[in-house]
């Protein structure tokens, strides 16, 4: 059996993309099926490891992990004001602004009631600057 075929079976076992035509061709060989089965058995033997770290390891890790602080995003650390407080401040600002410009609170401005003072006067003299046409 060719090495390329066995390598293809190995990649197939790992869930990698393989050429379906080449795979079908390889699997027609009984030796290929035996290789595939053996690779699966090797995988199973490697993964069936009952060994675990000792109890002292777990005790140490429990201590270490219990001191962990929750991960926070940088902007949460920089701006620790909660969103609800910001919203309340915004609403309060709108209310104060509305109250401040209410018509009853605005003092009448006398300047708007008087015409502006002239800064020059232009006179037109009949017979000089203008004529009456018959």
């Amino acid at each position, binding site marked *: 059996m060719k090495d390329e075929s*066995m*390598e293809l079976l*190995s*990649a197939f076992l*790992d*869930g*990698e993309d393989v050429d379906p035509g080449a795979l079908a061709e390889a699997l027609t060989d009984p030796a290929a099926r*035996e*290789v595939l*089965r*053996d*690779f699966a*058995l*090797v*995988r199973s*033997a*490697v*993964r069936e*490891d*009952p*060994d*675990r*770290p*000792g109890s002292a*390891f777990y005790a*140490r*890790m429990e201590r*270490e*992990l219990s*001191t*962990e602080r*929750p*991960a926070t995003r940088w902007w949460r650390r920089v701006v620790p004001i909660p969103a609800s407080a910001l919203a309340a401040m915004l609403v309060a600002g709108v209310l104060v602004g509305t109250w401040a410009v209410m018509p009853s609170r605005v003092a009448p401005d006398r300047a708007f009631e008087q015409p502006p003072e002239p800064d020059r006067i232009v006179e037109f003299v009949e017979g000089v600057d203008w004529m009456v046409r018959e």
Partner: protein
Amino acid sequence: MQAGELFQRHHLSVFRYLKRMTGSRERAEELTQEVFLRVVRTRSRDTAAGRERAWLFTIARNLFLNVRRDAGRRPEALRLDETRVPGIADVVAERIGLEQALAKLPVTDREVFLLRELGGLGYDEISGICALTQDAVRSRIYRARLELREALRGTSVPSLREGRR
């Protein structure tokens, strides 16, 4: 994701990977602890969902490489007194045979093979961690499987021994 959750999910696979890489369960415990301490210390854990395993195994691999560089020698096969495998003698013998066969693999082949089988990582992730092409990863995993198949057929895994008939 919190470090505690990552620990619960992945500590056994990290421990078993490091045990097979270092050849020592005590060293594997130390390094596994260090992996998760680094996770705790890392402020930003904004690793993309589904990439946590690759991240953990990258840390584990780097720690192993440091140990290996410091020790300046290849890891040895697990000693019999280091394996805490409960059960009957043939189960222990099978386990020892497997560990010895794994320890005999070239270190890079063993590494990519274990990242695949214990870490559950894809060829693309292993390629990124080990700085190899995906074709090289594929070939090395295949070679490791072939070596283990031959080694285990000749020794103690009954299903493989029977398969030779």
